[in-house]
């Protein structure tokens, strides 16, 4: 890679791309391959990289194409519209029919989250919680919250509308918090 991108940046971006690929593909080997192909493609095209988008957004767009190739080989996947539709139908597991929190899903006070993040076991739970949600939803969450991408860039890169994006982020956040509460934070009311 040329002088524009140093080793450290590359290592960080690689790690982030891997997290994104894992959220979508759920297979460490496939994810590794997709990221490797992405970096090779990026290296070849680096002269075409325009500073108008961030390096990260540009790499993510290449990775999305690589994963799309993989999926074409693997068969059909559920379109975003179907996921959003099923999410907006009144089937949220966290709320009762009148829209109140279900007692067991009720958000509680989490004790010492700052201590949790120091423990490797916590991150194992965190990772598993990302894997229990639909890959389409997990990937939006990872782009937004782990990679810190803007909503505009996410919508453009994934080809989804802002409103679908916000439904998916809500699903992801609600699912993750519920999963962490159940599996790590016992919590008090």
């Amino acid at each position, binding site marked *: 890679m040329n002088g524009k991108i140093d080793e450290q940046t590359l*290592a960080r971006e*690689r*790690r*982030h791309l*891997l*997290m994104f690929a*894992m959220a979508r593909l759920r297979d*460490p080997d496939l994810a590794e391959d997709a990221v490797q192909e992405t970096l090779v493609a990026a290296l070849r095209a680096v002269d075409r990289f325009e500073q108008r988008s961030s390096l990260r957004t540009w790499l993510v767009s290449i990775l999305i194409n690589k994963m799309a190739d993989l999926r074409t080989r693997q068969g059909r996947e559920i379109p975003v519209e179907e996921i959003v539709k099923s999410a907006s139908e009144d089937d*949220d597991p*966290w*709320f009762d029919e*009148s*829209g*109140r*929190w279900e007692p067991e899903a*009720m*958000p*509680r*006070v*989490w004790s010492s*989250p700052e201590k949790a*993040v120091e*423990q*490797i*076991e916590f*991150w*194992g*739970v*965190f*990772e*598993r919680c990302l894997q229990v949600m639909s890959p389409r939803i997990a990937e939006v*969450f*990872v782009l*937004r*919250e*782990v*990679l*810190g991408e803007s*909503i505009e860039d996410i919508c453009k890169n994934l080809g989804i509308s802002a409103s679908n*994006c*916000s439904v998916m*982020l*809500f699903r992801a*956040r*609600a699912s*993750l*918090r519920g999963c*962490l*509460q159940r599996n790590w934070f016992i919590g008090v*009311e």
Partner: protein
Amino acid sequence: MDKCKDIARMISDGMDRPLTLGERLRLRIHLMMCRGCSNFEKQMQVLRNMARRFGERPEADKDNRAVGRGNSSG
């Protein structure tokens, strides 16, 4: 009174765009009366910090397969 379901969605939306004045007002009124949604709001901030930290963990670089299988001394 808004449903918790709508308020939770609003809290989530507020992490991605500025809420309107009307939304902020509805939110504040609901949060004064609802502990569940107040906790949800706090958890959303905690979640955001956790997610950033998840992305910055250098050990995830070494082997993201090892994490969570209890085979590391940390």
